[in-house]
């Protein structure tokens, strides 16, 4: 991978195993100054473990961690210049909000007036001034998470670590706080590393997303890039809702042109940008539901007919579940163009927007 010039956080060849079980395998990431990185993946992929390693809460088996150019691999968490926000807020229940915010500072022996100044600033930024004298049990979930963020804020650190901070909140609050975190980032310009399994959070917040699976980073890229050009079938399937359509078939070259053959349909691949010169054989063809349209004539490089199975109106748009031959296929269309159940419709798309994967390795072709 490419190394950044002056990374804020740099992880080099990081490995972690519990006995024989390998949790993280030779990870490498560089995070730029002020960058917002999201670690995304299904549960058990190692994303929280990686975050805990960065925080110093877990001892690594091998590799090094640098923060601000300093090797912190064996440093205590408090000495790493990090602040951390937890999923369950982890507020000290017996302390008031103010005491919660100041605990770390008091432990570090920072002067009282300095503590007061920092708390005032954090409280202002997060708009929690009226809550300072309350106990955590008297706060709502959203307020608690604000306080938890405030605790990281007052530490005056370079790197913020978020461990699924919004997972315990209901959908509405989650959306609100998501925006607040984004604002906070643009205001503070700190480096932030954010763990989540929610792809919307990842897409909306991240400068770059690291999609993880099985302790390995699958792809580290800007959100749009990951969405549009996933490097393998796992990443393609994990991002996007509803998930990308996958058709199992064969890659064939007929008359000098590449085609993807699925059952009796042949999809021309003239517009598709191959990563490298392909070879014929089994492959998977992926296309996102919103990149397919109901055909109202020609103009698409590829068209076919399919049977409607279920129609799901979602308000702004509609999901239509189809059968293309024997394979399931979803299409997202605007609400006005909704077919009826059991209709036969014709569909079309541009293979330029599709992704082709090797059937065996799952890698992008």
């Amino acid at each position, binding site marked *: 991978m490419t190394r950044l010039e002056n990374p804020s956080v740099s992880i080099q060849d990081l490995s972690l195993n519990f006995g024989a079980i390998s949790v993280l395998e030779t990870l490498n990431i560089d995070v730029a100054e002020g960058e917002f990185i999201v670690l995304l993946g299904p549960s058990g992929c190692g994303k929280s473990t990686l975050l805990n390693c960065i925080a110093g809460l877990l001892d690594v088996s091998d590799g090094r961690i640098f923060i601000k150019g300093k090797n912190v691999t064996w440093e*205590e968490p*408090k000495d790493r210049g990090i602040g951390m926000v937890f999923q369950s807020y*982890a507020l*000290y229940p*017996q302390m008031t909000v103010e005491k919660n915010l100041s*605990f770390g500072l008091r432990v570090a022996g920072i002067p009282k007036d300095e503590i007061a100044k920092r708390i005032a600033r954090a409280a202002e930024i997060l708009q929690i001034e009226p809550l300072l004298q309350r106990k955590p049990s008297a706060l709502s979930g959203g307020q608690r998470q604000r306080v938890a963020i405030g605790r990281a804020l007052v530490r005056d650190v370079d790197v913020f670590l978020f461990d699924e901070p919004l997972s315990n909140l209901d959908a509405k609050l989650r959306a609100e706080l998501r925006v607040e975190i984004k604002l906070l980032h643009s205001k503070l310009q700190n480096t932030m590393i954010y763990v989540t399994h929610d792809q919307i959070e990842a897409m909306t917040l991240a400068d770059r997303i690291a999609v993880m699976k099985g302790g390995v980073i699958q792809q580290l890229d800007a959100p749009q890039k990951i969405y549009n050009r996933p490097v393998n079938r796992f990443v393609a399937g994990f991002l996007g809702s509803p998930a990308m359509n996958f058709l199992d078939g064969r890659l064939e070259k007929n008359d000098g042109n590449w085609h993807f053959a699925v059952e009796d349909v042949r999809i021309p691949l003239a517009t598709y940008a191959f990563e490298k010169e392909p070879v014929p054989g089994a492959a998977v063809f992926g296309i996102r539901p919103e990149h397919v349209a109901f055909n109202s004539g020609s103009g698409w490089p590829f068209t076919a007919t399919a049977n409607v199975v279920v129609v799901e109106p979602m308000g702004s748009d509609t999901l239509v579940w189809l059968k293309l031959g024997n394979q399931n296929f979803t299409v997202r269309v605007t609400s006005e163009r909704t077919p009826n159940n059991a209709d036969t419709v014709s569909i079309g798309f541009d293979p330029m927007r599709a992704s082709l994967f090797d059937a065996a390795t799952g890698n992008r072709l």
Partner: protein
Amino acid sequence: MADLAVPLPADTGSIGLEASGPRGPKPRHVFSRRNIFLYGTLIVVALYYLLPLYVMVVTSLKGMPEIRLGNIFSPPLEITFEPWVKAWSSACTGLNCDGLSRGFWNSVRITVPSVILSIAIASVNGYALANWRFKGADTFFVILIVGAFIPYQVMIYPIVIILREIGLYGSLSGLVIVHSIFGMPILTLLFRNYFTSMPEELFRAARVDGAGFWGIYFRIMLPMSLPIFVVAIILQVTGIWNDFLFGVVYTRPDTYPMTVQLNNIVNSVQGVKEYNVNMAATILTGLVPLVVYFVSGKLFVRGIAAGAVKG
């Protein structure tokens, strides 16, 4: 729950559907079969549990002639507190005729430091095991738990030797150490389970905040551990107060705890067994743990839930 049977509301006029059907709160009966069975069982069982206490109290208030004649369940015809006075201040063992009073203060002097020391050690142990696992800690813990099952008799002799070698045999501090050792397995287990059940993120947050081993223990964990401390205190107060074996083996007569004195009084039969004095002595000896229970029973149940059930 137990409100009286609610009469069906009077017909308030037809609204189209069946007018006389059930409406409003479902009627309930105080004397439903379920309730009779439930409370009946509970009361019968409660009687079984209360019977011995009742007999103890009643007997301790009777004079000896009445005990010889009457049945043990009948209430005293003539209430006398003499057995209590005798048990407390003048029952004899050998030449010592100062009853249980001496043993009471010995028990206090043994129980207080033992409870404090054993809980201090066990809570720190449990905390270290739950949050600061180091290599080999589990092995020691397993040994400790297995130790909870070892009959005390196996250990009496080796401990006599160890105490002799460190020069603490027969002293109060020796006994305090013994109590701390034998209280350790169960208490450590309780504390470990309790601390494990606390959200680990809290501990992580405190570490990020820069608190160390002792900082987290005293400033984060301790203030949150009231329920489990109550359980530990109750278990230890009753356990140590009620101990007989260690009290008799590791102390000398002038520091005998109350239970040993009780045993002495009960077994020092002078002619006829004075059952009323024995019962009074028995109640007096059990009084301290009983009071502790009655005062903190609710907290005990809550603490048990926190420390014993999870993990």
